[in-house]
């Protein structure tokens, strides 16, 4: 419950790129609060600043101004931060280094840990994480990423999260590159993982259907600002900001007239 300090809080968070005439504000004085174990979806079109927002939470991008606190504290030690905040990226093919086996890429996660594990322990943990995402360790461990399908690789990314067990997972369009039929199963996998690890998930997507399906709260981003921050039912049925209204109006859905009167 939202008592005590919130998990993530941002105040006046701003991020700019370039300078002088070429200056571009990607995220503009954004405020938000995210609580423990919440599922948040940040919806926005390309260029709306949603990915930059995510990168700031991942400490991959420094804010130009404003404060960003995790459990009330600013990011000081990045290593420690990445124990708690992790990500699943959009393109599974680009997320793995083609030159290393699945095993060595999962072993790389142990770099974050302060605990020391023996080689056998590490192997056991990796096997367990692979099984938990329905991959057979013996079948995939020695393989190279390019020998796997997109769905399998996306599962690997999730297995990695299973190993690290962060408090916050940022999932940047985790299903957009996968074929429609396996999309739902990847999503369910993520949600199961959330239940098990009791973590908070922040989905970054342009797909309002996905937002509706999974989230407790939806942030709608437009031109670097959060223009909507509410329960998905509320956002979809009663959008406040004209941008959201237009967006919802323009998405083709089955049960609504979209282009011309219903057939």
């Amino acid at each position: 419950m939202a008592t005590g300090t919130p998990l993530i809080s941002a105040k006046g968070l701003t991020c700019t790129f370039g300078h002088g005439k070429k200056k571009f504000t990607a995220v503009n004085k954004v405020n938000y609060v995210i609580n423990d174990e919440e599922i948040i979806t940040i919806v926005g079109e390309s260029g709306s600043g949603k990915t930059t927002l995510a990168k700031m939470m991942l400490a991959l991008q420094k804010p130009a101004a404003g404060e960003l606190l995790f459990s009330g504290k600013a990011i000081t030690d990045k290593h420690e931060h990445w124990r708690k905040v992790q990500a699943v990226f959009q393109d599974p093919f680009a997320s793995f280094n083609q030159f290393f086996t699945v095993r060595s890429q999962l072993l790389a996660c142990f770099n974050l840990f302060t605990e020391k594990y023996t080689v056998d322990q590490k192997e056991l943990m990796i096997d367990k994480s692979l099984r938990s995402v329905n991959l057979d360790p013996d079948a995939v461990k020695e393989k190279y990423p390019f020998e796997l399908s997109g769905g399998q690789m996306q599962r690997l990314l999730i297995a990695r999260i299973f190993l690290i067990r962060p408090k916050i997972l940022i999932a940047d369009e985790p299903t957009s590159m996968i074929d429609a039929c396996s999309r739902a199963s990847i999503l369910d996998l993520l949600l199961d993982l959330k239940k098990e690890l009791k973590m908070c998930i922040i989905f970054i997507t342009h797909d309002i259907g996905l937002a509706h399906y999974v989230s407790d709260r939806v942030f709608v981003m437009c031109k670097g600002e959060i223009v909507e921050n509410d329960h998905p039912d509320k956002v979809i049925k009663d959008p406040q900001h004209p941008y959201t209204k237009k967006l919802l109006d323009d998405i083709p859905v089955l049960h609504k007239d979209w282009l011309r009167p219903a057939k």
Partner: protein
Amino acid sequence: MAPILKIDNLAVHYKTRFGQQVHAVKGVSFELEQGKTFGIAGESGCGKSTLVNGLMALFMPPLFYTHGSVIIDGEDITKFDKERLRINILGKVISMIPQGALNSLNPTRKVKDFATDVMLNHHPEMNKKEIHELLRNRFALIGLDPRVLNNYPVELSGGMKQRVVIGISTLMDPKVVIADEPSSALDVSTQKSVIKMLMDLMDKGIIGSMIFITHELPLLYHVADDIAVMYEGKFVEVGKTDQIIFRPQHPYSRELMDAITKLSSEGERYDAKDKKGVVA
């Protein structure tokens, strides 16, 4: 009413650099009537884009004709020689709107000049002035600012480029337009305006009929009269739009439909009882 376009058991293959034959389209048949839109749905890699070449009888290595016919105006264009196809059919009778519209315009040629080149290919008797006049009128008619004619492609936004491409593809009032994922790279609002533009062109009679290819089923639902579901180079199911979307028969189509309805803003939400988060 007789169909304008009749595809009968069309198959297309390409050759890999190791000499293997890959049968990308394995015997496809359908008919297209005047004023109708035929939708083709399928995931990437199912052979949709190869089919486009097949439908235009445009076989460029490594793509080859296997068998079947594409009949338009009572003639099988797969039997045409290259020059005849190029001058009489391509862009004129069957035109297409490409998938990667962002890179489809020659980067070093003004829109006006490229469009003029296209016209001159089919109407060498026209002079440039006539063509420019025609271009301005046509662009105005279809709701495009004629000033973009003087722009280079780099000066246009993605949505604008797509509209310019549509304008150029339909210059010669083609009977059939094949739209290959014409809006998949655009944001939803631009997508809608592009689709509206296409529909408007049909209503104005500039386009006779359309073949619309996409992996986005809700979109297809709104534009197509009939839908074929394509899987591994074959149509696994063909039928009226409502039937395919709401009562799919083939297991693959069913799976596809389930996936989209589950993840739509009208569908059910993920079991909320398991969640602890509370709206702040």
